[in-house]
């Protein structure tokens, strides 16, 4: 035990004496959360839209009014034919066109369903996705509040994310993603680099020759980063709560436990990376290209998973960050408990076990 404490102490010395490590550990999370929160905002305001109302009855009128009075959209023009839709998009001012089918109110009364077509300018895929989501949310809320209140039959395709995040704030989307990204970076990349550094400098040779067993070496490497990652997670959550006013609907302790699980997963992944890389450079590149980029691009952090091609969707389902983002969103925004997100939690736990077993198996007690 004494040996082990000595080892952990040494690791803390390494971290606190390297200014670059400190910067990555503490400067980056704060900078990232602020940048994502303020600059890379996903919020939409004053989007110009067109309405093509083929029915022109009281229901379509009411929905149109709802959309325009929401504050997100400005009615740029009323359209009167299919050809005009294309023309409107080509002029580049209108981002979205809402088309009501003929006899909208009648269909709704008679069949209990009516069709609205939302056409968005997908040359900017991200905005298009958001704009259409916003519109859907408004229509859904109309169906819920107006039609349901009158006891009318209705058809609804709920867009859950919008329902709970009714202020439609972008920062809510970014906090879970940033958290996943930073924890991944700090935990996986930093551990893998620090183990690879021992190999590169030749100190691993001495550690191996020493009576320290592989498991204490690995755990000793991991503990400092675990502590620091956890501090990071707390900082991120505090920032998002106090600076951006993000709610924490769910249980904070539960949120922290899930965060710990994710940190643990990232650390074991870091160890696995270090077992296959012999230099800091290799460890860094593997972490960058195998972890950071996929985490950013495929986890649903920046680009919605639903919009991806099937192949990428499959890839995305092996991204640990995807499950963590879902968990965090659920706890923070919806206040869900374990009953809702047990599946994601189980997947993360399984991944952690897998990486841990793999890396202990692959950890070499020799140099070859």
């Amino acid at each position, binding site marked *: 035990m*004494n*040996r082990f*404490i*000595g*080892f952990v*102490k*040494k690791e803390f*010395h*390494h971290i606190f*004496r*390297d200014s670059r490590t400190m910067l990555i550990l503490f400067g980056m999370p704060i900078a990232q959360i602020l940048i994502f929160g303020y600059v890379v905002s996903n919020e939409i305001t004053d989007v110009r839209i067109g309405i093509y109302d083929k029915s022109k009855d009281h229901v379509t009128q009411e929905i149109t009014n709802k959309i325009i009075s929401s504050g997100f959209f400005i009615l740029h023009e009323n359209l009167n034919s299919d050809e005009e839709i294309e023309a409107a998009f080509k002029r580049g001012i209108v981002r979205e066109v809402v088309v009501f089918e003929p006899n909208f109110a009648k269909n709704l009364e008679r069949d209990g369903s009516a069709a609205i077509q939302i056409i968005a300018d997908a040359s900017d895929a991200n905005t298009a996705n958001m704009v259409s989501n916003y519109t859907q949310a408004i229509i859904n809320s109309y169906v819920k509040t107006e039609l349901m209140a009158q006891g009318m039959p209705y058809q609804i395709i709920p867009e859950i994310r919008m329902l709970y995040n009714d202020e439609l704030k972008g920062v809510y989307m970014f906090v879970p993603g940033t958290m996943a990204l930073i924890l991944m970076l700090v935990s996986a990349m930093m551990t893998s680099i620090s183990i690879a550094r021992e190999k590169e*400098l*030749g*100190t691993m*040779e*001495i*550690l*191996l*020759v*020493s*009576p*320290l067993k592989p498991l204490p070496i690995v755990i000793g490497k991991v503990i400092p980063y675990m502590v620091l990652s956890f501090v990071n997670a707390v900082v991120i959550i505090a920032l998002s709560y106090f600076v951006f006013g993000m709610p924490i609907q769910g249980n904070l302790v539960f949120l922290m436990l899930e965060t710990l699980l994710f940190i643990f997963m990232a650390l074991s992944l870091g160890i696995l990376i270090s077992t296959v890389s012999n230099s800091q450079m290799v460890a860094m590149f593997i972490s960058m290209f195998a972890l950071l980029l996929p985490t950013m691009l495929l986890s649903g952090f920046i680009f919605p998973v639903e919009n991806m091609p099937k192949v990428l969707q499959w890839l995305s389902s092996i991204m640990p960050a995807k499950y963590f983002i879902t968990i965090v969103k659920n706890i923070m925004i919806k206040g869900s408990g374990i009953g809702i997100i047990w599946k994601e939690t189980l997947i993360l736990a399984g991944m952690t076990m897998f990486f841990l077993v793999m890396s202990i198996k692959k950890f070499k*007690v*020799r*140099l*070859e």
Partner: protein
Amino acid sequence: MQNQTEYIVEVSDLKKTYEKVEAVKGVSFNVSKGELFGLIGPDGAGKTSIFRILTTLMFPSSGDVKLLNYDVVSEYKNIRTNIGYMPQRFSLYQDLSVEENLAFFARIFGTTIEENYDLIKDIYIQIEPFKDRLAGKLSGGMKQKLALCCALIHSPDVLVLDEPTTGVDAVSRKEFWEMLIRLKQKGITILVSTPYMDEANMCDRVALIQNGEIMSIDKPEAVIANFGRKLWAVKSNNIYQLIQDLRSIDFIDTVFPFGEYLHVTAKDLDLDLKDLKLRLKEKNHSEIEILEIEANIEDCFMELMTK
């Protein structure tokens, strides 16, 4: 328990192959208790491979290797607690201070600085004034001293030092060897490798190694005695031309440059110095000097290499 063998290290027919390269080609040697054993040869001779196998960091491709009567493959755990190892690359934590490095290595070997202070005292006392300095900021000689302290801190039975004096200045090298000799007197068996031939004289026994093969194992004096022929040091105003010219003379056997002189052997037992001088003058050499000298280890090494 009684130790049945008299040898601390037993290596028989050790071979090590990396993918296509055969780094160690059937090496055998034994080291007795309390011996200072030197493995001497140029870079790439296979010294590091042999030491890594001895310290259980690598598997031998074939052959039997035993340290302290434990097999390096199956009983590696027993070996690891009883050896002190100093790898070729400087293996201390550059961002820890002298004292922190030492305390760390003491701790992971389950001991304290105080417990074995006697063993390292002579060496540590020299670097103690700098104990709060980061290891990365020490001079080469001091780094080696610290590394040696760290390898010694758990009072190992065997010390394995891989090129400890490479890249260290001449004074520090001399000091380092003096420290090794003192450690030997304390009963520690020491294996050391070096590319510097002049260090061979400090060892009890040396193995001259080249291209993964041991050419000779003996006491340094015996290796020199085995040279068995006369040797001359030759010098002139144009040393580069002199090499070519000497090699073209029919009764000259070998010519190797050594500092400002060329070491020359003859095909016959003796050399007609007058005749040699005359021939060199014919080739426009002046300031010619020819001295008969004693062979050193390096001459022996060169001699063995050409065989």
